[in-house]
Each structure stands twice: as structure tokens, then as C-alpha cells.
């Protein structure tokens, strides 16, 4: 079923390649290699008790579905219509004005019309109309309705795993119709049939059993962090001793596990360690709640809740007062808009107050979890950090707003304030590509696998193109952000589209600039690369 790079001899010379001009409903999807992810393995679905756990491949004809799969999907739609006003509304009120059409990074980068958000939504709407509306039942195709066939299901799968739930379309929609919400529902339905991708299902199973996406066991987490401590000592001469699963600490710190193992997230992690040490913060890491990110969120509401529950549970067990969350995109969408609703009320915690500045984080007084950029911005504003931004002088930095924190939270100025204080060269990308209009990295929502690399490069092209612009114009060589998936995937994206631009988390830059008590003269940055102008004298 999957097509490889082959063309018939008579097609070779043909440039005017055009697909047949047919309506979109009559164009079944063609699975093209390098654009889709592998199917979820049976063992991973079994761990979390998901239905139809078996090994399968999207490229094969037979998806090994249960006999009554249509019934399951239709029942699933019915249930979700009654549970989510958003779904019912978004199925009904779209007028297909087309304002969202060219706002999607996948459409911009691929030109595939089914990547227009409105059409991606219509894939599900057409089924909704056929089975749940009077006009669709009576008029069929004229009313935009169609039967739920196996081809339709496959199309739904293909395109709902080509949406990163970035919400950019929702910003431009006159009714606020949010494709992210529709994709979430669509993926829930697909999961009823065991149709997840393994890049999501694997991390979910790991996170469920071991507390983090990578399946790092407790001693491994400790080892990994100790490894960073050695590097920190090399750079600063300071020996840091963080604690793990310590009862009675004031603060629990939770960050995406990507920061523990994937460069350049690891440097961000060193940044947290150095900052907290310098402050003398009474905090602890947890190996049980060792994941801020939540791939369950890309699976189903229930799965997301099951994974997220560990954070409050651990905070309660350890008896901390409140929680700080590290740099992550979808983690913060979850923490900000879902966590309290799912697993609250967190009445066993106290309203967060910075022990260093005394600032009350009023905006987090119910959820009791503070974003580290809010925390650090407050420190800097109150003059609690000694900073030497010239240590970042070899960097020309631009700022990538992550989709979830921009459009599902609105943390825009805090990181910029921090950035301006820790580096001297900061250049914004063009207005239409940042803040609420920011472009996705193209690999969010669990699409950061390797097998779909072409799709990722396409999806991230709009982002990379704007980076390239500031690189060529200002000589930008560092793309800073507050998202673990960004740190993992923008690196590959830059390698392809804008070589010589590196990627860093905010707190890596903070720690580079942070002047610590008793540190030795710094000659290296956290990457153990020599600091220009401050090289060690032999």
C-alpha cells in the first residue's frame, strides 16, 4: 500500500503531474513512506489495558480491526458528543469560510489540501453528518455526509496523525473552532480500535509503569543527573547535591524526562540544577513523578489523566508545599488547562510563594504549580540573581514561542524578560511567526519519531523559514525555547533547513550567565565548549 519512489517510464518526463480533479471525498488516502509513524505494538497497549492490543502496520492492507469496528467508532462519537460541547459545536457551526486554510504549517509545507484545518475537520464531520444529523441521513453526499468505510477510517488516521494540535487555526477562526480539540477526539476514537502510533504508545506505557516516557528506572534517573553534576563541577568548580524523593521538601520539581537524556535538553536540565543550587532552594526531584510531559494527552483524555495523576499523588506523599514545572510545551497545556480539573483539588498544597522573593504566584493559587519561567523572571526582577550576560555574547539568540504555551496559556513575556537579562543579543523573528501566531516545530503531539522524518521537515518548514530569515539578516545562531519537544526536534529541523543555528532551552542560557557563589572563573559553557574570549590559559 505504501508507495516508494518509483515512477513509470512515461511519467518520468511529465512535469504536469496533477491528481485527478475529483472532490475530496472521492480521493482515498495514499500512504506515502516517510510521512507516517509505525503502528502501536500490542505489548504497549496491553500494559495500559487498551482495546485491540496487537501488532499491526499502517502500511499493510489489513489493520486487524475488530469485526464491529464501525459500531465502536459510532458509539464513540455519540459518547463524546454528549460529553464535550466543543465537539458538538465544532461539528455543527463551521461555515467553511477558509480563513484557517493556509494557517496550518503542514499545509504550508506540503501543499496537501487535506492538511487544511477545515478539511481535516471535515473528514470527521462528514461521518458525523451521515450518522448524527437529519440532513446528512436524508441527503447524503449533497449535505456533505459520507459512509464510514475502511478507506475513510484510514484517511482519518493518516491526517489525524498529521496534526500537531498547535491551535494556530483556532486563532484565526471566527468561531474559535479548534482543530486541536477535534484531533484529540479523532485520536480517542482511533484508540478505541487500537490504532495508536508506537512513538506515542511506547512512551505512554513506559510512563505508566516507570514514571517517565523513556522508561528510566529510579536509579538510572539518579545516575543520569549525577552525570550532569560532574559536568557542572567541571564548568563551575561547584559540587551540587540534589535530592530525590525527599519527604518534607518545600517544593517538588517536575520536568519533561526529555531533559534528562536528549541533548540539548540535558543542558537545560543542568541549568535548573545550577539555579536551584545557587538559590539554596529546598526542593526535591521525584523518580515516581519523573515526567512532566504527557503523551497520554495525545492518546485520550483518560490516559492523560492517568499519567498526570502521579504529580499530585507524589506531591501529597512527599508533603511538599507547592510544585515548580520545568520547560515544556504540552506539559504546560496540561498543567494549566487540565490538571486541576482532572486530579484536583490540590487542597493538601499551599498557595505558591517564592521563598526567595516572597512573591505570591496569585495566578497559580488553585493548581499550585508555577512555571519556571515565571519563577525565574520574578527572581531577576527582584534582583536576586547575579548575572553576567556577556558570557552569552557569542550567541545571537532568537525566541521560538511553543504552540501550547503560546496559545493554550499565554506565557509570552516572562521568557523574553529572562532572555533579555541573560544575553545581550536577542532578535525577534517576524511578527506573523511568533507569539500567538507562532509556527509549530512540525513534530509535536508525539509525531517526533524518526520514520516520518520527511513529514517533520515539511511541517517545520514554516518555522525554519523564519529562523533562516533572522539568521541571514542578523546572524542569529541560537534558537531558544521552553519546550522539550522543541529542543529535541528543532535540532534536526535546523540541521536540514538552517545549518549553524543551534537550539537551547531558556535555563541553559540562564545558567551560562549565572554568577554562582564560589565558582571558579568560567572558561567553558554548559556544553563544555570554550567560551570565546575566556578560554583557559594554558
Amino acid at each position: 500500500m505504501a508507495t516508494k519512489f518509483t515512477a513509470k517510464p512515461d511519467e518520468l518526463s511529465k512535469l504536469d503531474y496533477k491528481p485527478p480533479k475529483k472532490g475530496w471525498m472521492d480521493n482515498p488516502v495514499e500512504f506515502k513512506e516517510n510521512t507516517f509513524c509505525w503502528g502501536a505494538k500490542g505489548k504497549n497497549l496491553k500494559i495500559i489495558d487498551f482495546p485491540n492490543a496487537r501488532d499491526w502496520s499502517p502500511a499493510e492492507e489489513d489493520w486487524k480491526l475488530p469485526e464491529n469496528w464501525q459500531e465502536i467508532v459510532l458509539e464513540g462519537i455519540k459518547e463524546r458528543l454528549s460529553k464535550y460541547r466543543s465537539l458538538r459545536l465544532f461539528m455543527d457551526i463551521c461555515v467553511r469560510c477558509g480563513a484557517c486554510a493556509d494557517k496550518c504549517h503542514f499545509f504550508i509545507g506540503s501543499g496537501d489540501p487535506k492538511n487544511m484545518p477545515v478539511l481535516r475537520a471535515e473528514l470527521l464531520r462528514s461521518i458525523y453528518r451521515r450518522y448524527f444529523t437529519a440532513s446528512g441521513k436524508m441527503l447524503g453526499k449533497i449535505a456533505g455526509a459520507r459512509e464510514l468505510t475502511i478507506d475513510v477510517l484510514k484517511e482519518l488516521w493518516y491526517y489525524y496523525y498529521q496534526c500537531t494540535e498547535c491551535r494556530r487555526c483556532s486563532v484565526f477562526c471566527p468561531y474559535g473552532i479548534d482543530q486541536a480539540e477535534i484531533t484529540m477526539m479523532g485520536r480517542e476514537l482511533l484508540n478505541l480500535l487500537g490504532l495508536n502510533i508506537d512513538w506515542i504508545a511506547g512512551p505512554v506505557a513506559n510512563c505508566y509503569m516507570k514514571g517517565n516516557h523513556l522508561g528510566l528506572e529510579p536509579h538510572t534517573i539518579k545516575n543520569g543527573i549525577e552525570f550532569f553534576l560532574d559536568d557542572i563541577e567541571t564548568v563551575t568548580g561547584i559540587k551540587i547535591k540534589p535530592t530525590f524523593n525527599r519527604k518534607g521538601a518545600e517544593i517538588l520539581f517536575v520536568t519533561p524526562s526529555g531533559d534528562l537524556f536528549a541533548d540539548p535538553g540535558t543542558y537545560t536540565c543542568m541549568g535548573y540544577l545550577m539555579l536551584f543550587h545557587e538559590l539554596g532552594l529546598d526542593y526535591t526531584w521525584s523518580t515516581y513523578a519523573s515526567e512532566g510531559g504527557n503523551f497520554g494527552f495525545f492518546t485520550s483524555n483518560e490516559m492523560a489523566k492517568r499519567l498526570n495523576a502521579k504529580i499530585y499523588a507524589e506531591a501529597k506523599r512527599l508533603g511538599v508545599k507547592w510544585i515548580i514545572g520545568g520547560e515544556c510545551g504540552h506539559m504546560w497545556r496540561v498543567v494549566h488547562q487540565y490538571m486541576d480539573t482532572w486530579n484536583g483539588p490540590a487542597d493538601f498544597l499551599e498557595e505558591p510563594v517564592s521563598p526567595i522573593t516572597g512573591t505570591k504566584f496569585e495566578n497559580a493559587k488553585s493548581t499550585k504549580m508555577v512555571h519556571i519561567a515565571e519563577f525565574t523572571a520574578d527572581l531577576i526582577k527582584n534582583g536576586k540573581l547575579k548575572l553576567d550576560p556577556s558570557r552569552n555574547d557569542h550567541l545571537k539568540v532568537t525566541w521560538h514561542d511553543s504552540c501550547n504555551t503560546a496559545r493554550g496559556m499565554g506565557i509570552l513575556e516572562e521568557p523574553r524578560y529572562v532572555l533579555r537579562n541573560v544575553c545581550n543579543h536577542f532578535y525577534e523573528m517576524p511578527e506573523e511567526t511568533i507569539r500567538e501566531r507562532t509556527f509549530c516545530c512540525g513534530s509535536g503531539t508525539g509525531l517526533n519519531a524518526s520514520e516520518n522524518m520527511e513529514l517533520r521537515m515539511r511541517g517545520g518548514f514554516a518555522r525554519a523559514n523564519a529562523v533562516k530569515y533572522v539568521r541571514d539578516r542578523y546572524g542569529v545562531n541560537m534558537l531558544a525555547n521552553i519546550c522539550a519537544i522543541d529542543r529535541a526536534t528543532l535540532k534536526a529541523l535546523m540541521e536540514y533547513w538552517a545549518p549553524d543555528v543551534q537550539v537551547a532551552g531558556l535555563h541553559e542560557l540562564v545558567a551560562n550567565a549565572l554568577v554562582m557563589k564560589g565558582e571558579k572563573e568560567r572558561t567553558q559553557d554548559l556544553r563544555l565548549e570554550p567560551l570565546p574570549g575566556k578560554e583557559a590559559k594554558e
Partner: protein
Amino acid sequence: MRLNSLLADKKASILGKWFDIIIESYPPDTSNFLKNQGSRFANPIGSTISQGIEDIFDELLRGPNPLQAEGKTSQFLDNIVRIRAVQDFTPSQALSFIFPLKRIIREELTVEIAGSRFSDEILAFESAIDNLALSAFDIYIKCREQIYEIKANESKSMTFRLLQMANLINDNNGHGPDSKENNNLKIKRGEVKK
């Protein structure tokens, strides 16, 4: 050289046709978007292609003179080929955008080149276009290789870090993966610790 000045006069119309032909290789529902959306940020593909072919054409007109010009042309080609290398095209489709330039030029200059007045110059110009196609092929392969390299590096560096965390790799003398970056990392670490 008279051919070049003729071509320079017709530049706008040649580029217009060339652009349209390239854009038509995309699905019809998309091509209009690629053609008409103006901003280089809202429509990076369309603007990269239109800028790219103009730069290439200018370089062709300037002739095969200095060495650096060649480097420039391939940079311009790179911008376009790099995009087409990750879209749903077969390799031949991805590169087929170059050859129509020959046809367009012959169409545009039907009258002027009648009676083979410029046949030598035309021949030379067309071989320059052929060379363009060959460089484009190199670039295309490089892009594809890069994709696979990025893929491989991602999983390598992940494995490397995980093994490291599990204390399975001794930092100073272990054998990490071959990826450039990790080797550097190791070397640096080795130096630092000795």
C-alpha cells in the same frame, strides 16, 4: 552574447512561465495558494521558488565565468531542491522543474532564433541548463542523505545517552556511536577530565 541580452529583455515573461510550470506540479487546489499568497512567511514555498528561479536565471545570464558564481548557483538551486526533496515527489518529479526552461526560452525567442542565427549561443545556454540539472541531482541526493543521517543521528544520540545513564558506557574510554557530535562530546569530556 547577443542572446543573453535578448534573454535579459524577456526575463520577466520567461520567469513568469517557468514559475507557473513549477507551481503546476503541485495539486491544483494548492497551486493557487502558492502562486498568490504574497508574504514570504505565510507562503515560504511560493516565495522561495519565485526568488530562487530569478537568482538562478540571473546567474545563468552572467555566464559560467568565475568559480564563485557556480557556488552561488548551487546555493540558489539548493533552496528549491531542498523543499522538493521532502515533498511527495518522485526524484524525477522533484528535479523535473529545470528542463522546461529550455522549452520556454525557445518559445519566447521563436522569431529571434529563426534561421539559426544564435544556434551556438543557444547550444551553450542549453548545456548550462543541463549542468544545472546535474548539480540539482547532486543537491537532491545530498538532501536525501541528510534526511537519513538526521534520522540515524537521532536514534544514535538517544541510545548513547541512555547507555551512558545506565552506566554501560564508560565516559573516558567507551565506544560511543560514530555520530560526529557525540564523538566531539566524548573527546572534549576526555580532555577535560584527564
